[in-house]
């Protein structure tokens, strides 16, 4: 018998009495306004919030990441120095200073943004870059994770992640360090999706 069949038949022979599957409510009554909550959660998780820059995205980027050599853009709002569409090998993003992507949606409860291969172009952009800038339409913020996990996007994406602030660790004496193996900073910029 294959291991597969052996495992399955052992599980079936375990004799557990079937128990019912409960309904999961949305738990969305009496929640604070999503935008306020998102900003608070994002700040708590070490991310930064920026209102739509009056000087324009490029000018803001130039100021915020003055020393950046490689700015890789996966959005039409800015060209950067490297278009993600020209990249095929994930490893080619090793030297990216700043990655720019647009989140499909966000979650107020946790301060998370949702990104998949469609948003990243090449997934490693979100992790090999030193800094990540995430454009977010404030109209695309969901109240909590129960709403988020009812989005069909999860079933469609090959890979997707709820990304919440920059990479972090507290593995040495509990000291919180932002910028572990992934991005050192994560900035969410409020910019409505162009129609």
């Amino acid at each position: 018998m294959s291991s597969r069949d052996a495992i399955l038949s052992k599980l079936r022979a375990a004799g557990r009495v079937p128990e019912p599957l409960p309904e999961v409510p949305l738990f969305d009554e009496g929640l604070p306004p999503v935008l306020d909550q998102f900003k608070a959660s994002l700040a708590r998780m070490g991310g930064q919030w920026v209102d739509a820059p009056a000087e324009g995205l490029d000018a803001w980027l130039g100021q915020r990441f003055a020393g950046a050599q490689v700015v890789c853009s996966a959005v039409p709002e800015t060209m950067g120095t490297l278009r993600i569409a020209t990249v095929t090998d994930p490893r080619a993003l090793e030297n990216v200073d700043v990655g720019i992507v647009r989140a499909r949606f966000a979650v107020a409860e946790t301060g998370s943004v949702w990104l998949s291969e469609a948003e990243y172009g090449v997934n490693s952009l979100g992790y090999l870059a030193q800094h990540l800038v995430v454009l977010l339409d404030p109209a695309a913020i969901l109240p909590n994770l129960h709403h988020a996990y009812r989005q069909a996007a999860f079933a469609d994406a090959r890979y997707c992640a709820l990304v919440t602030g920059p990479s972090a660790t507290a593995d040495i004496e509990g000291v919180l360090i932002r910028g572990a193996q992934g991005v050192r900073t994560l900035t969410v910029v409020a910019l409505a999706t162009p129609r």
Partner: protein
Amino acid sequence: MANDIFTDKKVDHVKGSRQFIADEPHIAFHDKRLWTLRELRDKEAHGIPEWEQLRELASAIKSHTLTHLADYLEEFERNATANGVTVHWAKDAAEHNRIVHEILAARGVETLVKSKSMLTEECNMRPYLEERGITVVETDLGERIQQLDDEPPTHIVVPAVHKLAKDVAEVFADTIGTDRHNADPHYLAEGMRQDTRPYFIKAGAGMTGCNFAVAETGTVVTCTNEGNADLSGNVPPLYIASIGIEKLIPKMEHLGVFIRMLSRSALGSPITQYTSHFRAPRAGGESHFILVDNGRSDRLAMDDFWYSLKCIRCGACMNTCPVYRRSGGLSYGGVYAGPIGAIINPTFDLKKYSALPFASTLNGSCSNVCPVKINIHEQIYKWRQIVVEQGQVSFVKKESMKLAGKLLADPKRYRAWSSGAGKALAKLPRAFLYNPFNAWGKQRELPEPPKQTFHQWYAANRKPETEA
């Protein structure tokens, strides 16, 4: 002790704890750090009105899934396969390791980067692959520290929590060349980052564990903070996930319940920095999912213990456990330490881990913080009965309990003992009471012996209705 995990040497928790306690800076930090995590967890739990309802739901979803586990595994396999993932089944650790090696060897992979996985620890996979010429790089900071120090993780979420920064400085100085005299955690973490990056680029394969496997979509979910799981899964051309078969949940919408509680229970943060969903290989990439039993199907058949399969490895029971905080993960001598270790390890080897169910005061705090409501302390109590039944306690203990049982079942003999107990105590010289063989007296004073027992007082002062 570290190297004894995969031998059948009996674990001596008392000895391990004594060593741990002897080192004041380490035990003081360990206790304080984990208690802080417990307090952060409390703050989150008290901030969510539906917290207790979420625990009920999580427990019920797990009960449902475990009682239909074969069906959900088939559904998961079907969907993952349709998504273009190769699904493997491993009945035990050896088969798991063989499968991983075959995948890597067939593609000429020399370097494997991986994120933290308790399952690969359980399978002792790293040495297996290293013996076969594959470089395995742990890319979670705590896990990497433990790998470089040749120690197992001592906590399932914070693997090097028993170490101080100066210990890490020593390990890193010896292995990755950082400055031995610089114990600043920022400096050390940056040293790790700089050392690890090139491995992500040159690795032929990346590997992760699995926090949840969604049957409905065939998705593997990982919850991490450092970005290393997403680097492992998205940079090398080949991705492998090891999945304990108990990780199944039916649908995406159930993740809402678990993700809301996992990091809150573990670290007191609302969510991990990355909650990542690997469903299908990326364009041009290759994915393999390995479904691993390794004792889980046996556990499912244990009437008193199958509940432990609900565990989502948050570590909250460890953080709250007053015994674990004061004895350290190494003292448990197994892959899993703390309360969850006390109930899981004996399912692998009762004899080896027979001490663990006794490394508990049965205080029950573990069960109260468990996000899936495992009755941990009740299982510990049950394991004690089984350990004794199977003859895995000392002759002295067994005989003394037999004698105690006989004495306490016989009022006459009990009176003879109790009326003499206090007096006997009072007559003994201090040197006899406070000797190394008297465990009570080593670090504690004995109670003042009373002049008479309650029973004697009652007989003298109140009119007894009946005489013994």
